[in-house]
């Protein structure tokens, strides 16, 4: 009897969640407020352990090479690794800052605290200091490499991002070379991070290596944001649509910092029509904001 009641409760919760996917109850928010700091702390610890383990492997390798040079070599290697790590981190932050500077729209930087806790839902959780800004469901999330996904749920200082490789995600995209438009969807059933373009009309054939960018239609994403590259084209001769597989530009496996676009760019200056820059200006994918 109790078990039947619990099963019924689970079904009711699922139905409510299916009706309003982004909404969370006060209880859920409360639980997430407790869970998120622990997740954040655990994430930092895990990264630190991974760093130490990486350095240890390097040291073992050097020790095997030469007994005399070991101390000097290991010290230099450790320093080099640390410097590289810092340089990489600094470069990441610089690129993120660069993207932030190039984006007239209001953005917030966020740190990824967990990703893919369940392999059946491609979701990343980020921790952000949102200040006065309001983070809402559907807001685009970017990195300097391209589109990451969109905000799916918000709870306190943390938000869930539905990655563009999630099978529930749908983004209107275009292949600039052919002008072909379609809907980018995450590919479920794949171990890697891949997606496919649906409803890509069979006109000029897409080729492997073709760039894929956002079309700007649908209103959620600005146009020309880098999404990925065509990695596979099915050689089918029948049907209305092409079957195209896309590898995202963003390396989701190493996602650590992202930008959330929290407000639309300011309205264009009516007198700026003549000095408007071409769409091929640097600051990839952000020509819509110029």
């Amino acid at each position, binding site marked *: 009897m109790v078990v039947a009641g619990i099963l019924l409760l689970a079904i009711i919760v699922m*139905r*409510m969640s*299916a009706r309003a996917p982004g909404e969370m109850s006060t209880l859920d928010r409360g639980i997430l407020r407790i869970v998120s700091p622990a997740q954040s702390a655990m994430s930092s610890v*895990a990264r630190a352990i991974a760093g130490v383990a990486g350095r240890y492997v390097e040291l073992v390798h050097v020790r095997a090479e030469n007994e005399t040079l070991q101390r000097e070599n290991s010290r230099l290697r450790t320093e080099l690794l640390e410097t590289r790590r810092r340089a990489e981190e600094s470069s990441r932050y610089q690129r993120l800052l660069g993207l932030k500077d190039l984006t007239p729209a209001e953005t917030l930087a966020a740190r990824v605290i967990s990703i*893919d806790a369940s392999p*059946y839902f491609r*979701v990343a959780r980020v921790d952000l200091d949102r200040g006065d800004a309001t983070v809402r469901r559907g807001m685009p999330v970017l990195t300097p490499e391209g589109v990451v996904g969109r905000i799916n749920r918000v709870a306190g200082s943390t938000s869930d991002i539905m990655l563009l490789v999630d099978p529930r995600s749908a983004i209107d995209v275009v292949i600039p070379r052919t002008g072909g438009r379609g809907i980018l969807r995450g590919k479920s*059933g794949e171990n890697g991070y891949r997606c496919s373009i649906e409803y890509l009309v069979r006109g000029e054939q897409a080729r492997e290596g073709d760039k894929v960018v956002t079309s700007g239609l649908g209103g959620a994403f600005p146009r020309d944001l880098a999404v990925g590259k065509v990695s596979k084209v099915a050689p089918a001769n029948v049907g209305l649509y092409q079957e195209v597989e896309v590898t995202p530009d963003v390396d989701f496996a190493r996602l650590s910092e992202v930008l959330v676009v929290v407000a639309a760019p300011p309205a264009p200056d009516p007198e700026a029509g003549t000095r408007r820059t071409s769409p091929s200006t640097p600051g990839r994918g952000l020509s819509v904001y110029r």
Partner: protein
Amino acid sequence: MRSLFTLIVAYLLLILQSTVLELAPVRMAAPSLGLLVVLHVGLSPKWSVSSSAVVAFVTGYLLDLVSGAPQGVHAFVFVLMVLFARVLSVRVAVAGIVLSAATSFVASLLAALLIVLVRAQVAPEGGYGGLRQAPLEALLTGACGPIVLGLLRRLDGRIDTTRSRVGLARGPHTLGDGLHLR
């Protein structure tokens, strides 16, 4: 008391599950540690069906919140899994490393199948895909199974010892570790 401790362990394991991929060289799958807690409460004769179902529901609900899945998906599947474990415990005495690992492996595969089926109902746009990574996840869960199940059995034993020391042990459930009167 027992439920509370088990839920705290489940919470810690879920946090670990959500961040363990940081340590992995290739991020493909993580062991389903929450499922192992559910298996433990389903297999252990010290747990009644109703209390194990409650723990399974709460663990699944926590996983829904931690993983960003639609609420209720893991909660529903975990309650079904606790019933599966209960039925299994009547027919098979799950003990020892090999049997624990095998049970964890099979349970993980079954849970993956159920999650994909339920997901297709809640979020139809996701379709029925996603099972290709289930074997890898099941292998990892199977590898962690004996350790986590052993840890939870020890925890149960500790709680029994403490209860009997303070005179709170309940008659029909236990007489020491592993000896059960019915």
